[in-house]
């Protein structure tokens, strides 16, 4: 039985015009879908970029059909120039990190489900919410524009290390207009993210419905909340960094550019800037950004896994505690990206210790998830498979962190493919697996239709095996000292490794192709999939107590009251094997 009231107050009335409904909507659900759509477009662009890079690495002299149409200068006759490779690499990294890994698991699902999971009718500040999406959208447009300016996108990587990124055209192609667009886009993106974080925090603190104590919030909500706090502080640091960079580039200041630099035979008119300052500012944002990408997926998996294991998550409080611990530690470790950067060698140990200590909460989280699988009656649906896959890739990506966290090993492994393998596994693949799990799990709620299971399973198996074929060999390349960010392998010791790169390229093409199964499934099910019931997975959290898709005010005027935690699965002595959060029945057993 649920408490209802006939005339609930809503902060804003349902819009009628198409524009207000679907474009400039204040509805967190629409905004969530908009974020998801943006991430979807971005991820496929990023994927195609990675394809082009992989093909060039394996077969550098192959003309790629049509590439000269995209950029006649960048790929004369379809053969990629070194700078164009770096342009594509920069755009791949930037688009994936900012517009996919930050948007999909956090902004998209968070916007849609955080208010519903705490029983609110919308975000605290719907107008800011709308602004945050459209700001992000503008940032994306500005970023993509870089493909079409005369000297192409920047070539300084997603980390945009100064002074390469701070000097302009003398530093090389793409570093004039392209780099300006990059810096402006990221600055705009920061503003959008800050607005989003503001909403997430205020909503979680103030709009929880009756009975929804912090300890009763689903783990996904917890993850989004912690992530919001992290990103609020992280993007508040990246924004100043971008402002200073833009000033160095356009106003002739010298924040990051040192004296007496000679580029393209021109003595640069800067003096006394600190190169390391950029690195410190960037990584103070950049490392927390890793957790902005992964924490929501951890939360999503922790929420979804028990649903299909049909038993409660092991150690709910420990899980939440670990997320908070990770968020806290993430601000003490940025220097581990800079062991060999020329900063004071003593500080290396100061950064190394907390970095290694992050592995403790991470390990606990993993063990708790594994422990949840133990003795379960697993329902092996697609979302369940992606949760298990998440655990596997998270382990694979996590363990390599032990190496890179040690300065003495970083001396050898820094800037090699070992690093590429590490962060792709732990940050990219793990996070994306969380997004896939979330998509298959929540699509029925978001669109009112089930996704196709057969296609879903094909998608899982191809992707799961594919990512291991792509990224596991990169560890071996790293052990052999294969440097990253090379557009071709001309060093004597790298030439024997080219066959490995060919293998990786083939795996990447295949795995990428498999993603079109997902895309097709998503679009096809949206219109043709079987109609979803209110609670198809027999889950407990609040979004399953309302219709699929939820009405404009989420609960159709009803006002939810919460009596249970989100973790009540495998309950005995109940008519079902689970108890909804809104169900007032007392749980006696266990």
């Amino acid at each position, binding site marked *: 039985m649920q408490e209802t009231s006939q005339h609930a107050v809503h902060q804003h009335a349902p819009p009628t015009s198409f524009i207000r409904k679907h474009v400039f909507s204040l509805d967190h659900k629409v905004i969530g879908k908009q974020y998801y759509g943006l991430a979807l477009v971005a991820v496929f662009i990023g994927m195609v970029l990675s394809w082009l890079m992989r093909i060039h690495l394996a077969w*550098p*002299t192959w003309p790629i059909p049509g590439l000269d149409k995209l950029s006649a*200068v960048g790929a*004369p*006759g379809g*053969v*990629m*120039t*070194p*700078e*164009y490779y770096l342009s594509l690499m920069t755009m791949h990294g930037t688009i994936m990190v900012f517009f996919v890994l930050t948007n999909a698991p956090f902004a998209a699902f968070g916007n849609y489900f955080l208010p519903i999971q705490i029983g609110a009718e919308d975000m605290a500040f719907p107008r800011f919410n709308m602004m945050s999406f459209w700001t992000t959208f503008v940032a994306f447009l500005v970023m993509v524009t870089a493909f079409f300016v005369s*000297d192409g996108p920047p070539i300084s990587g997603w980390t945009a290390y100064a002074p390469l990124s701070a000097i302009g*055209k003398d530093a*090389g*192609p793409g570093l004039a207009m392209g780099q300006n667009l990059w810096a402006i886009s990221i600055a705009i993106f920061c503003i959008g993210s800050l607005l989003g974080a503001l909403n997430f925090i205020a909503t979680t603190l103030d709009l929880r419905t009756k009975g929804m104590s912090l300890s009763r919030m689903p783990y996904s909500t917890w993850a989004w909340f912690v992530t919001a706090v992290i990103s609020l502080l992280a993007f508040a640091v990246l924004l100043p960094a971008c402002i200073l960079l833009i000033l160095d580039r356009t106003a002739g200041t010298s924040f990051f550019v040192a004296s007496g630099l000679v580029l*393209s*035979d*021109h003595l640069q008119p800067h003096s006394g800037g600190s190169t390391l300052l950029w690195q410190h500012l960037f990584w103070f944002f950049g490392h927390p950004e890793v957790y902005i990408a992964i924490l929501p997926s951890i939360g999503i998996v922790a929420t979804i896994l028990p649903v299909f294991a049909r038993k409660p998550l092991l150690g709910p409080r420990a899980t939440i505690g670990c997320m908070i611990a990770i968020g806290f530690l993430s601000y003490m470790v940025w220097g581990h990206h800079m062991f060999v950067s020329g900063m004071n060698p003593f500080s290396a140990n100061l950064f190394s210790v907390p970095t290694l200590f992050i592995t403790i909460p991470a390990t606990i989280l993993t063990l708790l998830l594994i422990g949840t699988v133990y003795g379960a009656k697993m329902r092996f649906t697609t979302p369940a498979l992606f949760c298990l896959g998440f655990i596997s890739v998270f382990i694979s990506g996590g363990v390599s962190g032990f190496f890179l966290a040690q300065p003495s090993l970083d001396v050898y492994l820094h800037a090699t493919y070992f690093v590429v393998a590490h962060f792709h596994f732990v940050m990219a693949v793990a996070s994306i697996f969380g997004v896939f799990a979330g998509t298959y799990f929540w699509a029925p709620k978001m669109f009112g239709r089930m996704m196709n299971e057969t296609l879903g399973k094909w998608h899982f198996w191809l992707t799961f095996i594919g990512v291991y074929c792509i990224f596991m060999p990169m560890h071996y390349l790293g052990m052999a000292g294969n440097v990253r960010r090379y557009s*071709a392998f*001309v060093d004597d010791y790298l030439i024997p490794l080219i066959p490995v790169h060919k293998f990786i390229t083939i795996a990447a093409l295949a795995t990428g192709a498999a993603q079109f199964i997902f895309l097709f499934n998503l679009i096809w099910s949206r219109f043709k999939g079987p109609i979803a019931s209110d609670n198809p997975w027999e889950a407990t959290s609040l979004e399953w107590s309302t219709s699929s898709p939820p009405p404009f005010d989420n609960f159709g005027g009803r006002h939810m009251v919460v009596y249970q935690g989100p973790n009540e699965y495998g309950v005995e002595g109940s008519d079902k094997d689970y108890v909804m959060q809104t169900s007032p029945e007392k749980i006696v057993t266990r």
Partner: protein
Amino acid sequence: MRTKYFLALTIAVLMGGGMLLFANPPAGSGSISGKITYTGTPPKMKPIDMSKEPTCAKQHTTPVLTENVATGPGNALQWVVVYISAGDQESSAPSQAERYDQKGCQYIPHVLPMVATQELQIYNDDQTSHNIHPLAKVNSEWNKSQPPGSPPIDTKWEKPEFIPVKCNIHPWMHGYFVVLKTTHYAVSGPDGSFEIKGLPPGKYTVSAWQEQYGTQTQDVTISGSENKPANFTFKVLPY
């Protein structure tokens, strides 16, 4: 009948005269030749270490030297551009394109004179990517890479300028595009000699430009199809 022939003849004469009147001035048969020499001790040209680019290194049996002050026997000075800087009539750029090669990680030729708006074709004959970065100031600067096997870069320069060219991938690769107004120019060879041909009679200012030691000028008057000598001597320093 007769009138017809007469008419045709007049037309032919008129047309011929018109052609004579309106065509370019006939290329003169005068010429200027001479030798570029130096006084003093020239700086020692440094050997270039190409080991980082094996495909280029193995094309050279003897170590390649820097070419900023290229000297020859008898104090000869190479790579000096001699051209008519004043007194020459306006004339359009030749139709055939100038060719610039990147071979063995060197620019060939080291100094390439050409006429403004003349076609320029840049080839990469090496098995490695090159990057052409003309550091133009009057004209517009650009910076393009040329992977092995990609088509030649077709371009041209609008205004006269001495443009240093560098390769951003191989820092030792340096050359010059010398873009001139006149079509009458020459480059001194290894023996320092040069000859500017096809000069119509007239009063000329001849300039000689060396990338490190700048420009010198002389006045030369050509009358008819004679060859006037013009020698230039540059003062060089060891450092």
